């Protein structure tokens, strides 16, 4: 871990600082498109919520609230850890950073496992996307199919993002361990962490909509 390869900026950058700025700007532009992608889904949710407030309330009351809330805590903790990891790498503590990134990836996997348990519970009850399953034969409120379809669609889209985020952090972790990522080019971990935080921010809004209110 102690020996690191000297890090130079890419040819078309004057120095590492400019390269870091470009990398961060690129990530923010990408995140803006992600916000618009999820924004469309949130707009759809808002429209159906206004149309079928009663069914959406029933859906929320029937959801796996404790597991969903636990998952919120898992993501908040993971975000705190990876933010600490970025600070550690900037200060030259590569070993600390690598442990923190490992813990972040681990919590991401815990999130996915809990999400899977939740899906399993819904399927057992006969709740499937598109209003399929015997639960909908017993619950007739107009709008319930829309609620559960949006729930599965939006949380699955989010889970895909968690998976991608964990893979990105995994690649960065491998770079840290191989000595290719350190204090000088810590912006690479920064950019990966920013993506992870956005995934957290999206869940921060999914949680109250599908589990609380």
């Amino acid at each position, binding site marked *: 871990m102690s020996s690191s390869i000297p890090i130079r900026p890419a040819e078309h950058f004057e120095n590492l600082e400019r390269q870091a*700025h470009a990398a*961060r*700007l690129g990530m*923010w*532009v990408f*995140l*803006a*498109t992600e*916000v*618009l992608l999820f*924004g*469309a889904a*949130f*707009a*759809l949710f*808002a*429209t159906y*919520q*206004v*149309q079928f407030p009663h069914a959406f309330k029933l859906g929320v009351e029937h959801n796996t*609230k404790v597991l969903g*809330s636990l998952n*919120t*805590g898992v993501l*908040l*903790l993971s*975000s*705190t850890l990876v*933010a*600490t990891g970025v*600070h*550690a790498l900037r*200060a*030259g*503590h590569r070993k*600390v950073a690598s442990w923190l990134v490992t813990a972040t990836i681990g919590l991401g996997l815990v999130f996915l496992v809990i999400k899977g348990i939740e899906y399993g519970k819904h399927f057992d009850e006969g709740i499937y996307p598109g*209003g399929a399953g015997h639960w*909908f034969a017993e619950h*007739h*409120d*107009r709008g*319930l*199919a829309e609620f559960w379809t949006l729930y599965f669609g939006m949380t699955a889209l989010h889970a895909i993002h968690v998976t991608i985020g964990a893979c990105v952090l995994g690649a960065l972790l491998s770079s840290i361990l191989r000595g290719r990522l350190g204090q000088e080019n810590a912006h690479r971990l*920064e950019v990966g*962490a*920013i993506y992870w*935080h*956005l995934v*957290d*921010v999206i869940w*921060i*809004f999914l*949680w*109250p*909509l599908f*589990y*609380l*209110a």
Partner: protein
Amino acid sequence: MSSFALPKTVVRTGLALFVLWAASFGLSYVHLGSASLLVALAIAAVKAALVVMFFMELLHESLSMKLTLAAAGGLLAILIGLMIADAATREPPPLVPPGYPAPDVAKIPSR
């Protein structure tokens, strides 16, 4: 190498996030009526702002990054705002065209 000192900003932000998380969870058991969704979303907005400002460090970023996110936020506000305004003020479609007999309500499928 000196030992790693925990960054204070990150620790404080993390603690604030967990306090808000607990508050949001607790408030969901209080019957606030129609305000409950707004309260929960307001807390979510504060949490998101904390993450964006202190974890993603937008507070200390250059103007170009702030403008990028502001543009996305502005477009999103237009999209969601207009969609809600439309859905909330739309007239329900007439079930029966004028001049036709009223339908048998029992025969209309519930879903």
